[in-house]
C-alpha cells in the first residue's frame, strides 16, 4: 500500500496535507510511490484553510 492508497481509503481528499511515515515527511508528489510498511506510524495533518 502507498501513501496515496491510504489517503484514498481514508477519504482524505483535501490537498493541503502534511504527511509523515514513521516520522519522515512525504512530499505531495511522492504519495503514489511511497510505500506504507505494515505497522507504520502514518500521520496526515490537514492544514487549515477555509473560513
Amino acid at each position, binding site marked *: 500500500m502507498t501513501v496515496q492508497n491510504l489517503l484514498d481509503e481514508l477519504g482524505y481528499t*483535501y490537498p493541503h496535507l*502534511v504527511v509523515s511515515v514513521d516520522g519522515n515527511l512525504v512530499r505531495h508528489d511522492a504519495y503514489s510511490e511511497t510505500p506504507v510498511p505494515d505497522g507504520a506510524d502514518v500521520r496526515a*495533518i490537514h492544514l487549515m484553510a477555509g473560513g
Partner: protein
Amino acid sequence: MTSHQLLVLAEFSYDVRQPERGYAGQTLYVNVGETRIAAKSVDETMKRTFIGGRGFDLWLLWQGVQDTTRWSDPENEIVISSGPCGGTTQYPGSGKSIAATISPLTDIVIDSNAGGHFGPYLKFAGWDAIEIQGNASGDVIIFVNGPAGKVQLLAAPEDCPPDTHQLGAWVNERFAETEEDRQLMAFLSTGRGAEHTYMGCLNFSLYDRKRKDLRYKQAGRGGIGTVFRHKRVKAVVVRTCSFGGDANQPADLERIIETGAAMHREVARWDAVQNRMRHRGTAYLVQIMDDYDLLPVKNFQYGSHPDTARINGEVWEKTYTQNLPDGCWYGCTVACAHAVDDYRVRTGPYAGSCVIVDGPEYETVAGVGSNCGIFDPTVILEINFYCDTYGIDTISFGTTMAFVMECYEAGMLTAEQTGGLQLNFGNAEGALEVLHQMARGEGFGRLVGKGIQRMKDYFATHFGADRAFLDEIGMEAKGLEYSEYVTKESLAQQGGYGLTNKGPQHDEAWLIFMDQVNNQLPTFADKAEALHYFPMWRTWFGLCGFCKLPWNDVVDPKNAESDDPTKIPHHVENYVRIFSGVTGREVTADDLIRMSERVYNFQRVFNLRLGKGLRAHDAIPYRSAGPVTPAEYQSRQARYDQQIVEWLDLDPTEMSLEQKLTAHRCHRMAQYEQLIDAVYARRGWTSKGVPTPETLRSLGIDYPDVLAVVERHL
C-alpha cells in the same frame, strides 16, 4: 473635476495629506443628521493601542455612543477603516476595509470586512477612517473628493436608483467624467433589501478595468447596510488622487517588495496543485466540506449530500469567467474574486437584464444552496445577484431560509402562515419569492428579514410553535445567523462560533480540521489555547487591512518542515516584515498577537457596556453541538452509537433512540460548558466571561471608563 449638480447640504475643505508610514493621520467625521463635517487627528497613542482597521472603528464608535445606544439611534455610527498596511500593492490581499456599527441583529458591535477599493482610496484621499453619525431626514450622499481636498454632504435626488447594481451606474454617471475618474473612484452602497430587513449588507465597489464595469464586494454580516439606510445614506463616494505602489509612503519599501515577490512566487507555484483559488475562488471548499461531512445540508442537519457535485468547485470553475484579473485589490495574486458575466436574470424587478454576478463564494453556495436543499447553480446565481443588489447578506439569508424550511417541514409553519408559499427544502422558487418579499418589506418575507432570533419569538408567540425545538434548530447565537460549517463533531469549533465577540462568523477561528480530523487538540487546555491564538491572529488581519486567505489557503510545502505547520510560520514572518516595512515599527510575531489582544478585549468590554458580553450570551443552539432530531441521529447512527460506547461507557443496543439523543445532548452540552471555563481562563476572563482588571491593565487599556464597565460585573 466633477459636476454632479447635486444640492450641497454641507461642505468641508481639508489639506490632503499623503499617508506616511501607512497612516493619513486624521479621520473623517460626518454627521448626516446635523449636516456637520469635521476632521479628527490620529495621534501616536491611538496608532499604538488600536493600530487601525477594526481597532480604529471600535475606538471611534466607543466615544460616539452611549451605554443605552441601540442600532437605530442617531448616535449610533458606522465606522470604516482599512489599516496601516491597507493599500499595499506588493503583497497579496492587502486592500481590505473593516466596517463596524451597533447591529440591528445583535444589539452589540458587529464588525465585517470587505474587499473592493474603498478603504485604501479613502486613506489615499487623506483619511484613515470615516465615521458616519446621525440620522438624516432625507436621502443623502457623502462625497469625499481627494484631489479637490473637499468633503460634501449632498442631497440624493429622487432619480437615485434603489439597488446597488443600478445605483453604481448612476454614481459613475454623476461623479466621473473620464475613464480615469472611474478607476480612481470607489463607493459604498446598499439596496432596498437593507431598508426592510435587519440583515442588510454594505457593498464596496471596485471598478474592473478589463470589464469596464463595476463590481462589488460585501461587508455582509450583522446588518451594517440596514444601519446605513436607516441613516438615509444612499452612497459614500470617494475619489482618490492618482497613486502608485508607494502610496502608503512605507518606511522600507524594499523590504515589502522583497517579501511580496517571494509570496507571489509561492502562489504562482502552488495554487494550481492545492486549492485552485485562482480558478475556483473559495468555492473550492464545497466538495471538500462535503467529503468531510462538514457542508451544511438542510439547516445543518447533515454534512453531505449526493447532489453536491452539481454545485462544487469544478462546476464554478466552468461557470466563472476565466482569465480576467481579480480586481478585489491591486496586486493580489491569490485572485479568488471571480465573477459570472452576462447572467440573464429570470425573476423579480430585473428579469431579462444581463448582469455581472460577483462570486458566488463558498459561503453563498453552501448557505443559499446546500443548506436550503438547493443544488442548482443557476438558482444560486440568481439568489446571489439579488442578495447583493438588494443589499442582503447571503449568509444570514441562507441560514435563515434553511431555518424557515425546516420549520415548514416540521409542521411549525403552515402555508397559511407563509402567505401560501410551500417552503420545503429545495423549493428554489419559494426561496426567491421570499427574497423579493424581503426586499419589498412585504408579506412573509418581511418577518424573515428580521432574522432567526426574532422569528423564533414570533413563531412561538403567534403560531404556537414549540419554543424549545426552535431554540435547538435555529442556527443563531447572539442574534447573528451561523456561517456555513457543520460543527457537531468539533467542540473547538463550537467554541470558534460561540465564544466570539460578534456572533458565529468563521473569521475568528476555523479549527475543524485541527480538532476533528487531526486530533491535535485533545484536551480542553489545547482547545483553549487554539481559541486564544487563532482568534487573536485573525483579528490582527482586520487591524491592518489584510485578507486572511493568503495566510493559509496557499502554502509552500516546505511549511511541513516547520515547528508548527498549522500556524504557517513563514507566512507569519511575512506579515511581521510587511507591518514593520510599512510602519517602521520593528515588531515580532508575539507583538502582533498582543496588538489583537488589546482590541479583542476592548470589544468584549464594549459588549458588556451595551448590556451583553456575559457567559449567557456565549450560548449556542444545540444543533451546533449535536443531533437534534431522530432523523439526524439515524443518518449517522454508527458514529453516534460508537460515541455512546466510547464517551459514556453505555451500551446503545440497550437504549431507545430518545435515550440516546438525551445522552448525547447531556454529554455534549456539558463539554461545551467545560470548554467555556477553559477558554475564559486562558483569555484572562472571569467565569462569567468578564475580562479582569488585571488583564486590562496588562494590555494597557485600563482606562477609567473601561474599568468602570467591567467592575459592574465582577
